[in-house]
């Protein structure tokens, strides 16, 4: 079955092709589209499950499935299109096909009335194809196909409702921010090949250990360029700005691409190339610091957003920061653990938010209100109309806030623990730990604020629309229930010793990062008394945040957006996201636009190329043609004269 892993890629590809064909030919055949779109995901999940089962029983930890020789250029550069099936990719396979399948199912209900239904499923299936190629690739170039492909699908789905200008602009923004990161990955690839002569992940791991010394420049450069790619794809400082805008896409897309799978590709890539990072301790510190800073700053912005999806978007950026903090402290398994649990609870949160938006949209639509269905100030008291959604989102909120025994508690606690433990080696990690703890407090705060504003209090959307609020259909709540179960039980896959578990995921992933871990000192043990204190601190932070958020939100009077007063002081700064977008616009976008418009377009293109180059050649040819046409005056006498002149000239050279 492992050799047949390509089936997991093939099924969604078939789905994408069929749905694309349907999108062109029979866009209204929604039943067929649903069956194909969800069916291929079920098939892919079955393949993933079978591969995982077989790998579990296999004594070999890593398989390479060569499909064909892709670029057999020279002895030095020969790239196969090969998949690497090992403990890491098999887990990722399960998460992507599993969560992805549930989100596909949810989409059936959510997108039901959209005219672009078939196109939507074609894109979604295609995304899964590229995501699987990304995690399965056995070499950087193969993974890069997926890396670029998911970027493309992300762009297509952010701008899915391209009729609205803002949506396609958000798509472009995401694409451009990702391009900057992709440039880093490409440079890293060139450097690796130049220095090691291989691009296979296994080759990089082995050759890197043999040829690079720990702390030398080359692994540092490679690691930093790779991490630049990760900051783009995984929305870290400084390239995180695209992710909040990406919420312009349909909500299930936000759940699948911009929360559960694609944005975690950076974390995956760091773990895949862990050997490079452990050879460059400085790069690891950079990863950890950037992760912690992102976690902190994104959380502060999340405190003062009103769009339900924007809150979740900043939450995602923040949680991704946690993951990078984890891998930056060489707690690779913890990073992946948080990746998985985050996929569960954040998908649940987004889909729950999707349910809420769905209900609000219908209610406001019936009441002919033009209020924003995503603005939490228009919501309130929805727990009565949508008890299921409320309960499920409540579970996810507890999980993300880090309340035991939900999944998020264990993964977040492990990352903070690792950061604290590394603090004894380098004080910067203590700072990271403190930032992470503060972010945890704020996470709990803004999540409970979200729930309080949405589900508690009084409905603020108007009398007329209130009666139209209703729970989403089963096809939407069903996947939510499954995700909720995973959110509750997800912690079991890496239950730590103090909670009576056996840290299964950590042992499972140990072979993947084995070589990398040989380069670094093992994470120092934390005294058990200290460990208890840390856990207690985390729980206290979570509970404080939750209670504080609830109390402060329900006590304050919330007014609908049209009556909202001007934000003041620090709140204004947070509400405007620290003006980062504006700063980027001034520093990067405007100069680039100026350069493109003035220098490149008007000077180089319009003047040099068009006027001088193209137009000049044309005018030159025209002038020569005019001269030539003067010769063709139709007068035989003239032709004869010219002939005679020529004859005389020739004769003068012949007769002596």
């Amino acid at each position, binding site marked *: 079955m492992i050799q047949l892993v390509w089936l997991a890629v093939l099924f969604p590809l078939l789905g994408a092709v069929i749905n694309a064909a349907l999108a062109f030919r029979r866009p209204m055949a929604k039943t067929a589209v649903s069956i194909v779109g969800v069916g291929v995901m079920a098939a892919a999940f079955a393949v993933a499950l079978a591969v995982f089962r077989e790998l579990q029983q296999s004594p070999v930890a890593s398989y390479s499935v060569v499909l064909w020789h892709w670029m057999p250029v020279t002895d030095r550069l020969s790239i196969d299109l090969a998949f690497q099936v090992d403990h890491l990719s098999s887990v990722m396979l399960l998460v992507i096909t599993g969560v992805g399948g549930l989100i596909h199912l949810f989409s059936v209900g959510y997108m039901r009335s959209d005219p672009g239904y078939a196109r939507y499923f074609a894109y979604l299936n295609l995304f899964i194809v590229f995501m699987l190629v990304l995690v399965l690739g056995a070499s950087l170039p193969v993974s890069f196909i997926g890396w670029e492909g998911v970027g493309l699908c992300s762009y297509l789905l952010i701008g899915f409702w391209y009729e609205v200008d803002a949506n396609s602009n958000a798509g472009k923004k995401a694409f451009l921010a990702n391009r900057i990161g992709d440039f880093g990955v490409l440079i890293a690839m060139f450097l690796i090949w130049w220095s090691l002569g291989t691009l296979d992940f296994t080759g990089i791991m082995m050759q890197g250990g043999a040829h690079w010394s720990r702390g030398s420049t080359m692994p540092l450069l490679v690691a930093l360029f790779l991490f630049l790619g990760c900051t783009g794809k995984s929305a870290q400082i400084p390239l995180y700005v695209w992710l909040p805008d990406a919420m312009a896409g349909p909500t299930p897309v936000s759940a699948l691409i911009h929360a559960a799978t694609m944005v975690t590709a950076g974390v995956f890539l760091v773990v895949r190339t862990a050997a490079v990072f452990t050879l460059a301790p400085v790069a690891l510190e950079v990863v950890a610091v950037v992760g912690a800073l992102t976690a902190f700053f994104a959380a502060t912005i999340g405190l003062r957003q009103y769009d339900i999806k924007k809150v979740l978007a900043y939450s995602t950026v923040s949680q991704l920061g946690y993951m990078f903090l984890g891998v930056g402290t060489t707690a690779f398994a913890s990073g992946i653990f948080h990746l998985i649990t985050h996929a569960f609870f954040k998908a649940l949160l987004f889909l729950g938010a999707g349910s809420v938006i769905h209900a609000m949209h219908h209610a406001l639509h019936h009441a002919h209100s033009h209020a924003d269905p995503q603005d939490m100030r228009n919501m309130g008291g929805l727990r009565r109309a949508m008890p299921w959604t409320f309960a499920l989102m409540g579970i996810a909120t507890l999980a993300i806030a880090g309340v035991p025994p939900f999944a998020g508690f264990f993964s977040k606690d492990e990352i903070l623990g690792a950061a604290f433990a590394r603090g004894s080696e380098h004080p910067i990690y203590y700072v990271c730990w403190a930032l992470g703890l503060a972010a945890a407090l704020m996470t709990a705060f803004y999540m409970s604020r979200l729930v309080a504003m949405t589900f508690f209090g009084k409905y603020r959307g108007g009398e007329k629309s209130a009666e139209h609020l209703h729970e989403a259909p089963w096809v939407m709540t069903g996947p939510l229930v499954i995700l909720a179960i995973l959110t509750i039980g997800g912690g079991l896959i890496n239950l730590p010793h103090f909670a009576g578990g056996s840290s299964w995921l950590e042992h499972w992933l140990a072979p993947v990062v084995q070589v990398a871990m040989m380069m670094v000192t093992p994470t120092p043990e934390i005294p058990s008394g200290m460990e208890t204190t840390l856990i207690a601190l985390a729980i206290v932070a979570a509970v404080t945040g939750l209670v504080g958020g609830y109390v402060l939100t329900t006590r304050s009077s919330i007014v609908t957006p049209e009556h909202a007063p001007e934000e003041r002081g620090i709140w204004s700064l947070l509400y405007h996201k620290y003006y980062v977008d504006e700063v980027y616009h001034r520093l990067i976008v405007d100069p680039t636009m100026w350069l493109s418009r003035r220098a490149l377009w008007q000077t180089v293109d319009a003047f040099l190329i068009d006027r001088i180059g193209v137009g000049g050649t044309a005018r030159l040819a025209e002038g020569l043609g005019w001269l030539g046409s003067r010769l063709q005056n139709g007068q035989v*006498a003239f032709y004869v*004269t010219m002939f*005679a*002149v020529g*004859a*005389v000239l020739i*004769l*003068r050279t012949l*007769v*002596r």
Partner: protein
Amino acid sequence: MNVTAVVFYVFAAWAVASALLCITRSNALTSALWLVSTMFALAAIFVILNAQFIAAIQVLVYAGAVMVLFLFVIMLLNLEVVPHDWKRWPVWMLGLGLAAVLGATLLPLRNYTSDRLAREISNLPGAVNSNLVFPREDSALAVAQGAVGHIAQPLFQAYLIPFEITSVLLLVAVIGAVVLAKRKL
């Protein structure tokens, strides 16, 4: 200066004078007749230069047939005689000037003698006897063959195929002339 040379120069002057008149007469018919005159003079020069057969067909074909065709067409078209337009004198100057340059270019030809040619061809220094380089023909054989046989011998042997091709050429010309000149086929 013997009689042959005198006769040659007389006919040469005749030919040049006729040609000059041919190109200057404004009436096409007069021009044609002066051209005929030129051809007669040339035929006489051909005889002097031992080309009796060619001289005969010069008169027969050129003066007799081709020029008659010209006269025929001129008369058929019945063109009105246009006197020279002396406003076109720049064109005349240009044409005559160009012709003069051509003439000056060809002027070195007057220095060509058989001895010089023999020297150039044999590529030897000093004086060369042209009679050795360009052997005289067997006058006895020439007399036996006669003027026609003298030229027919190579024409029907060495030049047989070109000769046959000329017949095809003439056929093509006949067909072409008919196609072009006839209003409707």
